[in-house]
């Protein structure tokens, strides 16, 4: 039998607990990551929503920014996590993002996201959400809101501008765990 994937959730600041709960429900072994050495032996990493300025500052202090750049496994970034991975920050994902692009909190909203290859829409929670301004050619759009990309994949990276961890629908986290398995096979 295959062992459970071991997933780290970056726990510097933000909604890390919700990711831990969803991933554990899906059968993953989950650890909280606050220091670079905690990235060792992980099959995948989640960078949660929170405040990207706070997360970046705390990551730099202990060298987690470099450690994440060097990390070879699958990474899933939601909201602030997507910003942290973009061209202007860690530079792993080939996209440009506008922060708080829908406006302040009174413009935060819930809406259905259209998924490619799945007829059932996915309910998305968008909180002071970022908007993708420019998308590199290698990125695959997996989810759209009003024709704009909100869920994208670039190889081992999965990026969402909304918060799948705040709803009961586990499809996006399941997709990430499937990517983790693929990566394990590629690397094996």
């Amino acid at each position, binding site marked *: 039998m295959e062992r459970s994937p071991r997933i780290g959730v970056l726990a510097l600041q*933000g909604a890390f607990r*919700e990711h831990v709960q969803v991933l554990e429900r899906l059968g993953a072994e989950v650890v909280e990551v606050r220091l670079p050495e905690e990235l060792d032996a992980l099959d995948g990493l989640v960078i949660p929503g929170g405040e990207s*300025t706070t997360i970046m500052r*705390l990551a730099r202090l202990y060298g987690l920014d470099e450690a994440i750049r060097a990390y070879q496994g699958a990474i899933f970034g939601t909201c602030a996590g997507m910003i942290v991975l973009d061209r202007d920050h860690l530079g792993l994902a080939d996209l440009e993002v506008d922060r708080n692009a829908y406006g302040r909190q009174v413009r935060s*909203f*819930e809406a259905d996201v259209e998924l490619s290859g799945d007829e059932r829409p996915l309910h998305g929670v968008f909180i002071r959400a970022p908007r993708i301004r420019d998308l590199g050619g290698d990125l695959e759009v997996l989810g759209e809101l009003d024709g704009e990309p909100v869920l994208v994949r670039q190889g081992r990276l999965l990026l969402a501008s909304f918060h799948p961890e705040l709803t009961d629908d586990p499809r996006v986290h399941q997709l990430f765990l499937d990517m983790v398995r693929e990566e394990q096979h590629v690397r094996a």
Partner: protein
Amino acid sequence: MAEYGTLRVKTGLAEMLKGGVIMDVVDADQARIAEEAGACAVMALERVPADIRRDGGVARMSDPQRIREIQEAVSIPVMAKCRIGHFAEAQILQALEVDYIDESEVLTPADVEHHVDKWQFTVPFVCGATNLGEALRRISEGAAMIRTKGEAGTGDIVNAVTHMRAVFGAIRSLQTLRGDELHAAAKEHRAPFELIRWVAENGRLPVVTFTAGGIATPADASLCMQLGADGVFVGSGIFKSGRDPLDDREGWADDVARRARAIVEATTHFDDAKVLADVSAGLGQPMVGISASTLPDEERLEVRGW
């Protein structure tokens, strides 16, 4: 169709703030210092609590011009305080598009019986509480986040600890009760039965719960996090620390920035005593403070709110 101002969207922003430090600021300069230090949000108010204590008088919502300047200065969420029950101040803050409203006992209450009906607003509210019943009454009025009150503006952590132990202890006690005993518990806590039952089943409040009031050092932040807080508010503890700004403005700015960064780090690494020892070293003068037990009753802010 997009839906705005839903409970999930309101509580969701609080979820994003967890593990973070929300800092009181009175102007754009302080807001920039807070953001650079790693604050996950700032709270705009007219005077920090220590100055409200010193100066006395009526404490009100901040000048909207100041709030706009703070919103221009930083990209992190900007919260602002309104007086308890002052729904007109809250309407103005919503029109300014602040990210959260704190209906706060630190300001002079506008109503001695009623709190703001927070369900009427798109913008979310955070409210103070000293015990479980008070927290649940605020949630039933629509609060999307709770902070334990402590005693603001003292630099003394003792009441924050008392209030956290009261809230979290009462939750643990509820979990030991039989289902039919929860009705009496709801009466005892003066809280809606449905919320009491939810708390008994889930072992926590239904909204994110921060701690406030008297946090002045990295160790204070760690203590609160270890006692079960989701994050901390720091008011006077940062900008009333360090060298005297009237004698040495730059020295003061250095001191407060260093203390602010240290409290942010301590909140993330709250259970790593080695990190705490490092970040606590050489921070300069903490705010002098007032022992909360010496305050006369009429100066205690924690008793405001009903």
